[in-house]
């Protein structure tokens, strides 16, 4: 099959059995790879008992999948998935790096993990030689130490395996930090110190399986394609467009930490009590002082939007991370009342090291700090920590407690939505008004109250990935940021950021054909391929369980706080009108093929050959 290595590895961590799995061309033509294929695999294997599957139990699957365009479309990524311990649905969560390239060069398009290892292990893939190895010596270690030890081990093993052939490059790795090990619902699957598949909580799933890391070395080429010359020409076109993308190349998303606050007024400030700040100390020019590399990127990327930041002196000395990017800037900056570049770099490096998602961690920290501000959580509740806005050391202490599930950290490690339910119960006060999540997933750092940022009214309420700011719902359905289009990037699997240019974006259909030989046009993608994926994701999201379920009437909504007016800044007084959300929601249901209660329609599911999904959601229709 063109564009595919053709094989997937299924690793049963309970028994230690490893086998090769293949999917038919028909299935791959329909579900491509990454997020879409994850949805297919999860539905087929877990769909019948979805409500009873504990995302952190051995019955869940952990999927690490590439797609046919991984390595060809500039900016290759890996998609992590499974039943999400955040939403109880499915999230396609992607992470950059060379791991997916090494995996494909080793001959595999993806990995399916089942069961749970008895002791901490890691998987080492050396071309066709696959081995489950002991990881007890790196269990408990942070990202930097884990990677140092495993890369060293991996290299010496490669050296003896390929003796006399010279040096191979180091194996690539994905791994979890201590937060994943403690099965935190807000832990990420991470790579290269500062890269994370954050949304979904798959670091916790990986930890629940006692899987510390996966290393891969592939000495072969990327898979054969239909027309290599054409692939090269399309890559050239995309590169030419992206080289002109001066803003992303120059600053990455790191100029937004000031800009989205000061100008756009949609940045979380003190747990979204405000969305505006004009703190020039948080300007990207302040961050630049810490950069030691101005362009940092991953396999095949023309944009290289990352920048390496290092704190070289002072009390926070030793922190190393990328820029940070806007999301980490906002959530571990203004959202915590922090407006100093080096403090933000320090906290970002800390969550990297511990394997937390910066968005989810920043979301729950802001929530905890607001409860402290309101006197609901006391110093005693917080184990002696006093998270006053802007107190970097207090937040660092809480981050460590979360990663270790120590004291209040055990509650906060459940993520904001679940933590709020627990705290409301123990404190006998309703703390849900201070929660900024959608379907259990902390919302990305782009508010909608000012009306100036990119998300629309329907974006968060109707997304099948909840608060994920990269996969948001949009009308019309062919909108350039439509969730149907996002399924392509997550299933391809490659980086959205190299396709902001229209010509580059349009070239993707040609690239799919040049790689796989399949003619999948934009129409087919929007009406059939991606539609199937969203419907299944919607179905499992509503089936939910075992601990939480979502009802469209209540949960296809924005956070309560966003109905209150902005208190400061150029958009002071602006709020979201409840009736507008209801209207947008209704329009979206209709356009996408869901009934008035938000459940995928029978005829729509049958049109797409999803009769089994139709049968399963009948139950939901009867509840209405």
């Amino acid at each position, binding site marked *: 099959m063109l564009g595919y290595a053709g094989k997937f590895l299924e690793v049963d961590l309970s028994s230690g059995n490893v086998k090769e799995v293949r999917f038919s061309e028909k299935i791959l033509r329909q579900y491509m790879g990454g997020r879409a294929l994850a949805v297919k695999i999860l539905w087929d294997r877990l769909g019948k008992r979805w409500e009873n599957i504990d995302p952190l139990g051995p019955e869940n699957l952990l999927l690490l999948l590439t797609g046919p365009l991984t390595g060809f479309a500039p900016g290759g990524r890996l998609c992590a998935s499974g039943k999400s311990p955040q939403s109880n649905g499915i999230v396609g969560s992607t992470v950059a790096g060379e791991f997916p390239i090494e995996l494909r060069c080793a001959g595999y398009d993806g990995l399916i993990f089942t069961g749970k290892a008895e002791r901490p292990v890691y998987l080492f893939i050396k071309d066709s030689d696959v081995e489950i190895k002991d990881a007890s010596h790196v269990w408990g270690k942070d990202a930097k130490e884990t990677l140092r030890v495993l890369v060293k081990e991996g290299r010496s093993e490669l050296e003896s395996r390929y003796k*006399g052939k010279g*040096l191979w490059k180091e194996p690539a790795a994905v791994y979890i930090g201590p937060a994943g090990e403690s099965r935190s619902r807000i832990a990420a699957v991470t790579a290269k110190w500062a890269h994370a598949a954050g949304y979904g909580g798959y670091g916790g799933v990986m930890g629940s399986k006692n899987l510390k890391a996966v290393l891969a070395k592939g*000495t072969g080429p990327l898979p054969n394609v239909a027309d*290599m010359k054409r692939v090269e020409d399309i890559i050239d076109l995309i590169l030419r467009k992206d*080289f002109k993308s001066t803003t992303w190349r120059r600053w990455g998303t790191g100029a937004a930490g000031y800009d989205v606050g000061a100008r756009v007024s949609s940045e979380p400030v003190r747990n979204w009590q405000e969305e505006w700040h004009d703190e020039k100390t948080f300007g990207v020019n302040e961050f630049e002082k810490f950069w030691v590399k101005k362009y*940092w990127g991953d396999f095949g990327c023309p944009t*290289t939007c990352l920048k390496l930041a290092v704190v070289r002196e002072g009390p926070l000395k*030793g922190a190393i991370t990328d820029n940070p990017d806007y999301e980490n800037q906002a959530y571990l900056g203004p959202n915590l009342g922090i407006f100093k570049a080096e403090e933000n770099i320090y906290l970002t490096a800390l969550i990297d090291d511990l394997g937390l998602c910066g968005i989810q961690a920043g979301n729950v920290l802001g929530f905890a700090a607001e409860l402290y501000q309101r006197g609901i959580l006391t110093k005693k509740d917080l184990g002696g920590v006093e998270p006053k806005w802007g107190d970097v050391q207090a937040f660092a202490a809480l981050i460590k407690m979360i990663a270790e599930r120590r004291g209040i950290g055990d509650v906060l490690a459940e993520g904001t939505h679940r933590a709020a339910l627990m705290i409301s119960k123990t404190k006998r006060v309703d703390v849900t008004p201070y929660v900024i999540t959608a379907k259990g997933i902390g919302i990305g750092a782009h508010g909608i109250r000012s009306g100036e940022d990119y998300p629309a009214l329907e974006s968060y309420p109707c997304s099948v990935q909840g608060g994920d700011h990269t996969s948001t719902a949009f009308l019309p359905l062919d909108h350039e940021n439509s969730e149907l289009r996002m399924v392509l990037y997550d299933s391809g699997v490659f980086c959205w950021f190299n396709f902001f240019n229209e010509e580059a974006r349009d070239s993707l259909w040609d690239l799919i054909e040049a790689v796989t030989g399949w003619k999948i046009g934009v129409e087919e993608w929007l009406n059939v391929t991606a539609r199937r994926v969203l419907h299944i994701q919607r179905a499992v999201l509503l089936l939910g369980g075992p601990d939480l379920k979502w009802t469209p009437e209540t949960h296809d909504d924005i956070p309560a706080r966003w109905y209150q007016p902005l208190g400061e800044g150029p958009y002071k007084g602006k709020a979201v009108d409840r009736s507008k959300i209801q209207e947008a929601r209704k329009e979206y249901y209709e356009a996408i093929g869901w009934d008035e209660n938000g459940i995928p329609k029978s005829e729509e599911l049958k049109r797409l050959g999803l009769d089994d999904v139709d049968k399963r959601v009948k139950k939901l229709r009867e509840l209405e």
Partner: protein
Amino acid sequence: MSEVEHVWIARDYVRCSGCRRCEIVCSLSHEGKIWPEASRVRVFMLVPGIEVPHLCTQCHDYPCVDACPVDAMSVSKETEAVLVDKEKCIACGKCIDACPGKVPFIHPIENYAVICDLCGGEPKCVKACTEGGWNALQTLKREETHSFKLYAKRPEELTRDVIVQLYGDEWKEAV
């Protein structure tokens, strides 16, 4: 020296973005495929953020050529690059042992030593790096006064050099 202006590929590791576009264009040109481990320039990343493009620097004394027991290696008159005769090469690895930087390697599936041929004088990796504005790789005129051999180092040594510069002294022992 011949009359033609010879070039070599100078490298500035601190500027390497890790985009590996050099590996992509090199392997496409030499193998017709995207094949990172068969690329004549390979970006090692022993520590994240410390990316070191590893490739032949054409030492004056060409220890690899001297070490070849079967005369499979020669120096191109046109470019002064090391050329490998695939038919003659027995993949014994003596050139690898002789190289102070352990730059050559045996092709992943074929039986010969792989080494940069400077693309006949216009290296594609340099073009890709220049077009992207990274300028980690640059072609410079090859002059007698340059000690190219200084660049023939193992990835570990190069990493140590760069890591101290970027992350500080405390990282010296990391590799």
